[in-house]
């Protein structure tokens, strides 16, 4: 019994220590932002690996999620003779939930894990130490650009996801299932509020971008510098990011859509 309690306590202490360490790291990362502004090249390079390389999976997923939403929504809505609301349903679910959340989950799997692996490998091969001994702060030089790029890329990717989702839904709803084209757009415009739906979705994805890249760079920087350690850190990044996104989504939804 006491052993169980002790183990529980040890787990808590470890969790709190990790949280504290990651907070300190975050502060150091944010301190470097002003320096980054003087070297926009670094940011562009990271936007490439975090953003551009993630576009394909985001675009394809967005398109298919929109198409499936439209298909499923049509079967249910047509039972109530409310097919005209199909566009609203597709757009609302994409903008409010699926766009930010699915993008963040895919981002964690594609970009987050790659970030962790890259930073972890740089640590394992002493590149981070090497930078430090060259009087270059690895946190500012390596982590800050990656963090800022992830923070910027997430809402952009989410916007792409939602836009392509709406188009995919339109293709299925209007093109294949015969919902009227005018009704689709007019109903959507009448019922989707830019502030309530669109802005809140963007805020969500900003929060997710912050948290996902934070987790990714922390796991990479904090990984055990061996190949086993880096692969464990990569797995942890995906698991922690996904859980954080889903948990935060619930909290944010509760706060936003009263």
């Amino acid at each position, binding site marked *: 019994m006491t052993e169980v309690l002790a183990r529980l306590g040890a787990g808590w202490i470890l969790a709190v220590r990790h949280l504290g360490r990651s907070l300190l790291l975050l502060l150091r990362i944010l301190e470097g932002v002003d320096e980054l502004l003087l070297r926009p*090249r670094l940011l*562009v*390079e990271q*936007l*490439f690996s975090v*953003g*551009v390389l993630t*576009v394909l999976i985001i675009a394809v997923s967005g398109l298919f999620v929109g198409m499936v939403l439209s298909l499923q929504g049509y079967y249910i809505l047509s039972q109530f003779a409310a097919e005209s609301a199909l566009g609203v349903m597709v*757009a609302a679910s994409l*903008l409010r939930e699926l766009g930010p959340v699915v993008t963040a989950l895919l981002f964690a799997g594609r970009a987050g894990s790659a970030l962790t692996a890259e930073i972890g490998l740089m640590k394992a091969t002493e590149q981070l130490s090497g930078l430090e001994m060259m009087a270059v702060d690895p946190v500012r030089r390596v982590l800050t650009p990656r963090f800022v790029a992830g923070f910027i890329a997430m809402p*952009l*990717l989410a*916007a*792409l996801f*939602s*836009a*392509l989702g*709406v188009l995919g839904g339109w293709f299925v709803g209007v093109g294949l299932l015969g919902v009227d084209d005018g009704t689709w*757009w007019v109903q*959507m*415009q*009448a*019922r*989707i*509020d*830019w502030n309530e*739906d*669109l802005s809140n979705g*963007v805020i969500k994805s900003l929060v997710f971008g912050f948290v996902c890249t934070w987790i990714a760079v922390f796991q990479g920087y904090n990984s055990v510098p061996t190949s086993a350690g880096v692969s464990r850190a990569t797995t942890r990044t995906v698991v922690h990011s996904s859980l954080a996104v889903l948990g935060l989504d619930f909290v944010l939804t509760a706060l936003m859509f009263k």
Partner: protein
Amino acid sequence: MKTSKTVEILVGAFVAAALLALFFLAMKVSNLGTLDTSDTFEVVARFDNIGSLKVKAPVTMAGVEVGRVSSIGFDQERYQAVVKLAIYRRFDRIPDDTFAKILTAGLLGEQYVGLDPGGSDTFLEEGSEIEITQSAMVLEEVIGQFIFGKAKEEKQ
């Protein structure tokens, strides 16, 4: 690693495409494109019961949207709802004896304000009040009246 020029072009394309997507979502999907809040004038209408009318509900005339509900208040002396309607300024020839009623879109849809034009030569302008209004139909009352009417019929 690609050459730095390609990287720059691809990142530029990515950001541009994403901003375009955001613009599309704002203008084509949400109501930002149809919203013109600046160019309106406000008129007041009083209703005995507004049902479930909400702020931002459309105000239509012959089915065409001519404005939006901008605020809903309550007059404690007359026990009436005070609804302010923001009418787009381009509709400047609505007679001031126009009739406002609260209608429902579809059987269970949202409620909106419908205007029926009167015959006056003077038009609505900033601050005017619509005198003739009809309250929202509340489903329970309608059903209640229907049953009451049936009962009366059977008595006779």
